[in-house]
């Protein structure tokens, strides 16, 4: 009989891990709290650096897991471990016995209103990168009315002691430049500004995207963290930053301001995580065994982690980890 492997989370990491486990002859079971598989990536329109439609990737992943046993709108409410493995109770009162558990619970988006000085939720035309992505997907957003000037603020909820997130959220820089290009495609006449501290173009083709952003899309990159946002009489946004490369304070009026919100640990899993005995690291994400060779392992036997539950990750990073976790689990089962 095939051994059950419980995967908590049906995003990119969960789906990919399930796909690989199935190929390795195990029986993955996905428990997903939302109404559909796909996770955050399914909410995305196009992917950096090449503007590839996210739907393509998600559809392929969905196709691969169509035979995997999946619980939607379901959460794990309790989990116990004994010599036979793990016994999970689901919110629909079913129980699952599994030999191993993979935590693929991913991340939450930083709540932009926590960064009060940016006025998200207070000033009408401040929006998040997630909402902008939705605009690209649906073409609808009340805040976007043929804007003439658009600004992007990097590191919202990242690299910031004041919101207790000191880490870099990794993907927002590239996402910001991608979105800056896209908004310029929609509104070619608009002026687009990004306010960054460092542009961390860490992957293949990302630096080319940066160059393209500057050269072909005429996006203006200003080095300086936006300090405060306020609203003027016309409901336009007045922002202040230092143009640090120029060494002078800078002030400008924008029609739309997009906040590049960071990734935060998905806290809805905290209770189960605690029951499994998996600790958090200093960034508040799940602690894996070590970051080089034990990235999928936890201190707990039979509990594995994959994807953005351990740190902010890009899609390729996540897929890579999902594949490696499958191998780890396979070895774990076979060596038992």
């Amino acid at each position, binding site marked *: 009989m095939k051994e059950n492997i419980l995967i908590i989370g049906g995003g990119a990491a969960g789906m990919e891990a399930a796909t690989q486990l199935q190929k390795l002859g195990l029986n993955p079971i996905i428990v997903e709290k939302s109404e559909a598989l796909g996770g955050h990536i399914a909410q995305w329109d196009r992917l950096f650096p090449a503007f590839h439609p996210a739907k393509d990737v998600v559809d392929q992943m969905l196709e691969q897991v169509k035979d995997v046993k999946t619980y939607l709108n379901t959460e794990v409410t309790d989990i116990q471990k004994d010599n036979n493995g793990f016994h999970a109770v689901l919110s629909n009162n079913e129980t699952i016995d599994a030999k191993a558990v993979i935590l693929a619970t991913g991340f939450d988006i930083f709540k932009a209103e926590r960064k009060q000085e940016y006025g998200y939720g207070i000033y009408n035309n401040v929006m998040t990168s997630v909402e902008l992505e939705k605009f690209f997907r649906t073409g609808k957003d009340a805040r976007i009315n043929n804007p003439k000037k658009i600004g992007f603020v990097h590191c919202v909820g990242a690299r910031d002691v004041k919101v207790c997130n000191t880490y870099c959220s990794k993907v927002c820089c590239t996402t910001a430049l991608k979105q800056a290009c896209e908004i310029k495609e929609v509104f070619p006449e608009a002026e687009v500004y990004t306010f960054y501290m460092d542009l961390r173009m860490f992957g293949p083709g990302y630096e080319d995207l940066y160059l393209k952003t500057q050269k072909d899309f005429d996006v203006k990159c200003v*080095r*300086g963290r936006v300090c405060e946002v306020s609203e003027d009489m016309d409901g336009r946004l007045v922002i202040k930053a230092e143009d640090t490369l120029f*060494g002078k*304070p800078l002030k400008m009026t924008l029609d739309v301001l997009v906040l590049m919100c960071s990734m935060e640990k998905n806290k809805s899993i905290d209770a189960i995580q605690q029951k499994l005995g998996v600790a958090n690291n200093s960034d508040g994400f799940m602690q894996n065994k070590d970051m080089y060779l034990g990235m999928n392992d936890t201190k707990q036997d039979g509990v594995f982690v994959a994807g953005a539950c351990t740190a902010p990750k890009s899609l390729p990073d996540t897929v890579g980890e999902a594949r490696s976790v499958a191998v780890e689990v396979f070895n774990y089962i076979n060596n038992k």
Partner: protein
Amino acid sequence: MEYRFKGHLVEELYKDYRIKEGMKACMNCGVCTAVCPAAEFYKYNPKNIVNIVARKNEEDLEELLKSDTIWYCGECMSCVTRCPRANAPGLVIMALRKLSMRSGLYMQSEKGRQQYVVVKDLCSNILNYGYCVYPRTFDYETHKEFGPVGKWINDNLDDLHARMGSNLDGDGPGGLRKIPKESLDQLKNIFDVTGATELMEQVLNDAHQEAVKENLSDEEYFMEVYTKNDWEKHLNH
């Protein structure tokens, strides 16, 4: 040039609790400068100052302590709210100013020398009256912005405060009451014990020396420092 703490400026600066509290690591994001009122109206950039302090270089620090730039800050502390690394540039400035005064380097800059005016006015107010601001020493002639109403207030000071219910120079509680002698003595003791007297006397002495050098009376020197304004030089074009 000779000055106190030569060769030990960095060491001395880092003893200050405000450096301990206000000086972590800067990532040059510039929010402090963006929000800073002084950066808008003076040739001033708090971020750069924090960077110099972080560098811990004796020569750079000496230059900084000698310069006008550390005296531009208005200590509104707006920078403290925003810094994503929890630095407090405003506190760093306060520590720098103190060291600049103690080392004597403040006498090298136009804005630094003004400390004489501020020390003389405020410390004497505290020690003589127990208040930082005392209306009888707040002169209309040197505070024209007090306006016609201000002049009228000063001309009718006793009557007006009586009208408003103040207890000007009176005993017991109430606004502007006379602070009892024992309390003033305690303030003086605090000044002596905590180093304020020493600092004050040093500043007054530095100013006196400078006045002698410039062939001015202390009063004339006071007015020179009080009014001298090389306006263009301080602007951030």
